């Protein structure tokens, strides 16, 4: 009797989980399905099953060049910002973790403070700053302000503090210079934390909309999310092409997610349980 009730409960759980899974996945499946429909066709109702398949929307986007430039921009900006964060968050985190000067303690307080500041309240002054500094509507505006971030510093600092300082002391006794110790000995040891950081930064940057939107004007500088949002505004909604572009925007994230799930999850839960 007990095992039968158990089986029933397990079946119930699977049914419930599957129903939720359908709700969570359907909108993304819908995006992919519409991206494969004939341009201009109606997408609702039973069309989901019946409509003919075509890859012409993807072909159109690439041949018209509407998508290629934003895609390249997103990759350039994403890679630069990610590399910057790997280097700079590590440098700052090392300084804060290993040097106990008063100024460093003050700096760590500023990291925590900025972590709590809602970034969106700076859109106006950052816009003015970029205009006055002459970097408005250039790659610099998309890259420079984001090269180091407080969450990244926090994450890497915690990791460095968990490493035994004995390795560094031994190298110091051997006469290695400070910078050599930092970059050639400690940095390679931080690879797991830096991988988590890199994924987080890349995802955030790849999906980012507000700042790339307000800090650029030219079509040639739009990133993928900005181009998609504006494409919707300009045309009488052309869902097939829009969903094809969306699919391309989602694909890299999806692929990275499938391969790097563990790092992604540990990045999200790192700060939470410590509290």
């Amino acid at each position, binding site marked *: 009797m007990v095992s039968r009730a158990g089986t029933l409960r397990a079946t119930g759980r699977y049914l419930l*989980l599957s129903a*939720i*899974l359908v*709700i*969570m*996945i359907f*909108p*993304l499946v*819908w995006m992919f399905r519409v991206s494969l429909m004939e341009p201009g066709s*109606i*997408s*609702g109702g039973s069309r989901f099953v019946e409509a003919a398949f075509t890859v012409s929307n993807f072909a159109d986007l690439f041949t018209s060049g509407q998508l290629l430039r934003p895609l390249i921009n997103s990759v350039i900006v994403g890679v630069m910002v990610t590399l910057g964060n790997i280097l*700079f968050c590590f*440098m*700052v985190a090392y*300084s804060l973790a290993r*040097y106990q000067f008063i100024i*460093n303690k003050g*700096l760590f307080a500023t*990291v925590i403070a*900025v972590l*709590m*500041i*809602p970034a*969106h*309240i*700076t*859109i*106006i*002054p950052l*816009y*003015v*700053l970029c205009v006055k500094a002459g970097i408005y509507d250039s790659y610099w505006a998309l890259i420079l*302000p984001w*090269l*180091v971030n407080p969450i990244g510093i926090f994450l890497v600092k915690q990791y460095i503090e968990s490493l035994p300082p004995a390795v560094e002391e031994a190298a110091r006794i051997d006469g290695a210079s*400070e910078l050599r110790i*930092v970059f050639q000995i400690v940095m390679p040891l931080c690879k797991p934390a830096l991988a988590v950081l890199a994924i987080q930064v890349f995802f955030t940057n*790849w*999906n980012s*909309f*507000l700042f790339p939107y*307000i800090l650029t004007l030219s079509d040639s500088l739009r990133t993928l*999310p900005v181009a*998609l*949002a504006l494409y*919707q505004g300009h045309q009488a909604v052309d*869902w097939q092409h829009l*969903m094809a572009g*969306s699919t391309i*925007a*989602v694909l890299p*994230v*999806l692929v990275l*997610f499938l391969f790097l*799930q563990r790092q992604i*999850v540990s990045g*999200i839960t790192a700060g939470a*349980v410590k*509290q």
Partner: protein
Amino acid sequence: MSGRKKTALLLASPWIVTLLLFWTVPLVYSFIIGFTDYQLLKGARWVGFSNYVELFSDEVFLASIKNTFIFVFGTIPITTVVALGLALLVNGQFKGRAVFRAGFFLPSITSMVVIALIFTSLYERGGYIALLARMAGLSPPEHGFLYNAGTALYSIMAMDVWMSVGYYMLIFLAGLKAIPDELYEAAEVAGASAVRQFFSITLPLLRPVALFIIVINSIKSFQVFVEIFVMTHGKFDTSTMVYFIYDAGLRTDFRLGYASAAAYVLFVIIALFSILQFYLMRRRRPLW
């Protein structure tokens, strides 16, 4: 200065530069221009508190505050409870749990622009959600959910809950994993029911995690913007505070001073809520 001190400063310099250039200067600058009538391509004149006075008689701004509060207080309790429910459902060992976890989590790492575009279509007059509503015997709004002041904001909120529950589910899962099994074993021996175990062990021990989730979610939700921009452009009574700042400062009249004052009102609101939440987090006696 000693060599070690120099190295420490050198290594910290990227943060020092970013802190000064991209945080301190903008925050101080926007605080100052909040007291001027600075408008792009026109000069700035000192106007004292008149921006703030105008804000609180500006109906669009007041509606934006109202909508932001509806958004924050409408979504956060639901998101938190659903995320906890999902975490409990996928917790433990069973076949296929990795698939369910990944599936639930997937929307939250997708671009908000893409999600908002997808739902713009799903919420349309002939879209799937209207279809579902009709199947449930309800009558969906004539022009679609987003073209109706009574449903637009709530539709966006529902999407936001859908999108973010998987993310907070993961944090709850980490919290569940940190609860020692011995507690449940002892409760089992003492004959406590599953429901009793949940209310006496699981819920109290998840309290810090739940508060952490509420804090980060409210800082995020007070700044809601992208979904409003993509789905309604602030029309149909959906303008929020960040949308108002964008609209007043960078879209219609480029009133940078006025928009900066609005940004500081938002800053103060978020700061007050963060302080309140930290106070609750530190309390010895829990609220539940």
